């Protein structure tokens, strides 16, 4: 009788464990920040360490909004992220479409170059970008951040969109063009709606990239009223003091909008939209 091949024991359990580690890695720090944000500073520094706050307080959140103009930071971050995401998706969608459909020479090479651009360390770009923005007199303006953010997210967004566009049958666009669309019209009326999951995925990636970015924001915006959230949060720190509960509360204020946004758009990320238009 043939021996059964030895199999990895409890494969499912191992997968669950791996998933658990990944989830915990992301979730536990946020949970810790959340708990810290409702503790007093005294409680935080006390030993032994308490996990749950002994006397939960919202005072830190009040301080977040009174100590610094966080509403301005939020507004700056939101506007910069939305506008750069819109710019990035528009250009990436056109680029991805061109790579997939327009019979360009060596589309694979172009994609590789895009990937290489995505690998540039940001720090190497800071000085040239600063010089450029100063020459353009754009320092301390939204465009100083919108333009580089959009460009920095483009390689990844283009690659995501290329993989989605490749799944759209050519004849759907041909039908749209015969029905009266221009090529761009066919992209807008047919390809984009059908690749909505891909577009939202790319948009979320671009948005989160902008929302989190610190280095360029710090370098290109020195005026307080033009600061974005990641930079603004550092203002809660004093020269000698680290008010961790207040900083934690500010971090929660930064995390919540983007979490809501992702939760809302996640519903739109539904697959299988293309089923039924073609045979099979």
């Amino acid at each position, binding site marked *: 009788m043939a021996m059964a091949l030895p199999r990895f024991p409890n494969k499912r359990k191992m997968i669950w464990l791996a998933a658990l580690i990944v989830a915990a890695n992301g979730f536990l720090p946020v949970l810790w920040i959340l708990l810290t944000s409702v503790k007093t500073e005294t409680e935080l520094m006390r030993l032994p360490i308490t996990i749950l706050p002994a006397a939960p307080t919202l005072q830190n959140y009040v301080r977040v909004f009174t100590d610094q103009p966080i509403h301005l930071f939020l507004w700056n971050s939101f506007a910069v992220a939305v506008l750069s995401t819109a710019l990035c998706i528009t250009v990436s969608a056109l680029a991805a479409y061109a790579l997939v459909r327009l019979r360009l020479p060596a589309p694979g090479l172009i994609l590789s170059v895009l990937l290489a651009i995505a690998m540039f360390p940001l720090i190497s770009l800071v000085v040239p970008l600063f010089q450029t923005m100063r020459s353009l007199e754009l320092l301390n303006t939204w465009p100083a951040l919108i333009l580089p953010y959009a460009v920095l997210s483009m390689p990844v967004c283009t690659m995501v969109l290329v993989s989605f566009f490749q799944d759209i049958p050519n004849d759907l666009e041909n*039908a*749209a*063009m*015969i*029905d*009266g669309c221009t090529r761009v019209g066919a992209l807008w009326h047919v390809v984009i709606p*059908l690749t909505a999951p891909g577009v939202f995925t790319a948009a979320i990636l671009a948005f989160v990239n902008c929302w989190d970015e610190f280095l360029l924001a710090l370098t290109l915006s020195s005026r307080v009223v033009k600061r974005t959230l990641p930079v603004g949060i550092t203002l809660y720190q004093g020269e000698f003091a680290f008010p961790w509960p207040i900083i934690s509360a500010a971090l929660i204020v930064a995390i919540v909008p983007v979490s809501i946004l992702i939760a809302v758009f996640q519903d739109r990320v539904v697959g299988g939209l293309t089923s*039924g238009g*073609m045979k099979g």
Partner: protein
Amino acid sequence: MAAVEIRSVRKSFGRVDVIHGIDITVDDGEFAVLVGPSGCGKSTLLRMIAGLESVSDGEIAIGGKVVNDLPPRERDIAMVFQDYALYPHKTVAENIAFGLRMRGTPKPEMEKLVREASDILQIGHLLERKPGQLSGGQRQRVAMGRAIVRRPKVFLFDEPLSNLDAQLRAEMRIEIKKLHQRFGTTIVYVTHDQIEAMTLADRIAILKGGYLQQFASPNTCYARPVNRFVAGFIGSPPMNFAETDVDAGISRLSLGQGLSVPVSPEARQRLQPAAGRRVVLGLRPEHVKPGAGGPSSVPAGVELVEPLGSETLVLLRLGDALFTGRFPAEAGLKPGDTTPVDCAFANAHLFDPQSGQALTA
């Protein structure tokens, strides 16, 4: 409505030439079918008419206007695709109305036209569904609805029935023919199925390897094929071919293995171009009949019997040649039998063995 003129049209993809100068004029209101084996260039030609492929050389005119440089949307055509190409995110009504919407048709008129088109195609009850909720046949009807609703100058069909089962295909074939009779719009229809070509077309353009072989009515293509390719392509089961040496007096045709078939005096006139030379003889299965005592009767070995209900196809060995004959339903034959067959050479076709060109008119 409009004529479609294809003048010396060529198409190359890089260095590969796929269409080598084709001239076809599809008259106003005509139903023309482009037919040929895979890779013959028929779909490419259709896509050039649609504006989905550029024309490398030559001209395409629709309604007298050269359209080479016009985008598809300005050619006033509609196209039905092999894979339906319905917009999966839109309902049936939105699919049908899309072309009207893109052309800025007012909403009440748009609704009226969609209703009319869906009534003609009997899909009125499906208007609110998405394509994913439809069967293959229903999807094809929606695709046709999308085409007819705009009343374009020309309909283009790209193998529209090849994804349907045999019964549905026959049904839709009738439907398409009815649409043509109703609207009288010029149609260019691509298929690889010669039965579709024969049943639908006013004229058939037979293509091979990017060259036009013949452009004529189905009956002409069947009765007077210009070359061996057309003769073999049109007709089901296909024409029988055999290379044969003909004597100067055209008294006998030699089919190999010592088999020499006598030629009747009536058939001699037909076989005149073959006198004293080697030719390819073509004979349709209906001209290979059972029968002893005929002028060209010879015994043939039965190799295969295919009963079709109304008739029986019998594969027969005649010398070196294998001929299919149409026999009555109750032929009572089985493989291994020997049966007398009569070849009606008065209906034979003759082709040059080298060029394949027809020698008979």
